[in-house]
């Protein structure tokens, strides 16, 4: 470039300003996009956390007052969450139609214990017969079966089979596990890579368990009775433990009417219609804290009025975020 007959080297001021301006615009657009995505992600998680906390407070209103014992930063109660990833899959050899329901653990649900749960839509069931067809294609250490009368992750019955060819009925109450099946646990044969029928008849505090390649209900494999404050109703959920990858099909619940899910009208790769629900596992590092205390004003404590705080925590870019909602529940029915 020449200026006043003299050849100039490098950039002019104008050129530099334009270059800096363009770079600035690029950085601004990128930063705005990034901020927008982050802000929306945070708001999405906050909305989810708020719904979970509100759901917990509402669920507590249906709990007997005596059960609202004081506790600090305990697990949420009386909400049956899903866990892991459940979706419809098209499977060669599916027992009916083309589709089955697949349970797999998510990265958030750990590798041991209860790694997958999918709550069957509908009702809190009391007395019922439930039949499912289950297949575990591979794996050397797994558990799979059903949760019955599922209230929350610390209160339910679990009927399940293991890779050691044993089957169990366990009661989990307040997080403490008690076996209800005969001892030692009855054995079964080769549950791998075949669809088996698992049928349970729940009648009051008695359970009859059937497991076979045919839906034979003449003789139960065993019976179990819970004589210690049994759970008399609750949700039913498909269960996978110890990172099992399991297929379920023809889920049928018989009460005064019959409801069956064969998943054949559902879209493979999606959650079955009506089975969508979310829980703490849908939040990155999601955790819940329930605090119940007697209402106190000044030095006076009221044992017939509880202060309830439901807190949901999650991680947002390695920073802990939380939502806390509180309410009061009165022994005498009036609550805020």
């Amino acid at each position: 470039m020449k200026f006043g007959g003299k050849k100039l080297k490098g950039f002019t001021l104008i050129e530099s300003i334009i270059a800096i301006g363009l770079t600035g615009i690029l950085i601004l657009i990128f930063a705005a996009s990034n901020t927008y995505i982050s802000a929306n992600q945070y708001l999405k998680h906050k909305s989810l956390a708020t719904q979970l906390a509100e759901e917990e407070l509402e669920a507590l209103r249906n709990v007997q007052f005596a059960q609202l014992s004081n506790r600090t930063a305990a697990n949420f109660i009386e909400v049956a969450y899903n866990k892991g990833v459940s979706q419809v899959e098209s499977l060669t050899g599916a027992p009916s139609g083309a589709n089955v329901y697949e349970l797999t653990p998510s990265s958030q649900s750990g590798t041991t214990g209860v790694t997958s749960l999918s709550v069957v839509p509908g009702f809190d069931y009391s007395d019922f017969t439930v039949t499912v067809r289950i297949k575990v294609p591979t794996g050397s250490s797994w558990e799979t079966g059903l949760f019955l009368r599922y209230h929350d992750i610390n209160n339910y019955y679990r009927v399940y089979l293991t890779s050691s060819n044993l089957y169990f009925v366990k009661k989990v109450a307040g997080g403490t596990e008690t076996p209800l099946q005969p001892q030692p646990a009855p054995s079964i044969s080769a549950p791998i890579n075949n669809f088996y029928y698992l049928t349970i008849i729940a009648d009051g505090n008695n359970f009859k368990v059937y497991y076979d390649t045919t839906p034979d209900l003449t003789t139960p494999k065993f019976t179990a009775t819970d004589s210690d404050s049994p759970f008399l109703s609750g949700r039913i959920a498909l269960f996978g433990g110890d990172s099992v990858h399991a297929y379920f099909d023809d889920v049928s619940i018989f009460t005064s009417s019959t409801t069956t899910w064969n998943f054949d009208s559902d879209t493979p790769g999606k959650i079955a219609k009506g089975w969508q629900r979310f829980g703490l596992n849908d939040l990155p590092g999601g955790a819940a804290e329930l605090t119940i205390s007697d209402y106190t004003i000044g030095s006076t404590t009221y044992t017939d009025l509880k202060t309830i705080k439901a807190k949901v925590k999650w991680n947002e870019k390695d920073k802990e975020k939380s939502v806390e909602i509180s309410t009061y529940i009165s022994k005498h029915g009036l609550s805020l």
Partner: protein
Amino acid sequence: MTISETLVTIFIFCLIGVMVVGIYLAYDNVYKVQIGYNELSTNNSMAIDKILDNIKSATRVVNGETTIDGNPYTTDNDTLVLELPSVDSVEPGQPQNIISGKFDYLVYFLDGNKLKSDLKKATGSARKEGQQSVGDFVDTLVFNFNNIDYSSVNKVEIILSASKTIKNQTLEVVSQTTAELRNK
């Protein structure tokens, strides 16, 4: 400026132009997707809040068929029929009194991708009769109950799944909550 300098200048200018336009389009895409999410979330929240309020004030979940304006409705896992105490006012900020012994019947149901309500009111009730749109883009509406006998239900769980396709991307927002019938 030589021809090669001109060509290099044009090339750099085009390159920067493509980058600016590319980043702008990416930003626009993100913006529209996020707006879509916000729209679905807001729709779901408003719908859920309305349903929640009515469940809380209901006297019971109706068991059996209810006919409103010639349309029969029965409570099941995607239809909810509620019995509400009739009220003498629905104006915000105005006192609202229950009309003793009279009830309105409110239904929530899915009509295609629209979540709708339908209401049959008792004589003297101030509630607005007829169908109303409660939410859009709804794929799935699920009601779960705490008893298989609807006449014994006192807790209802609502799961609402809404979706929308924006820029070939399907967005889905699921909302979930539980409400206890306070007047049962």
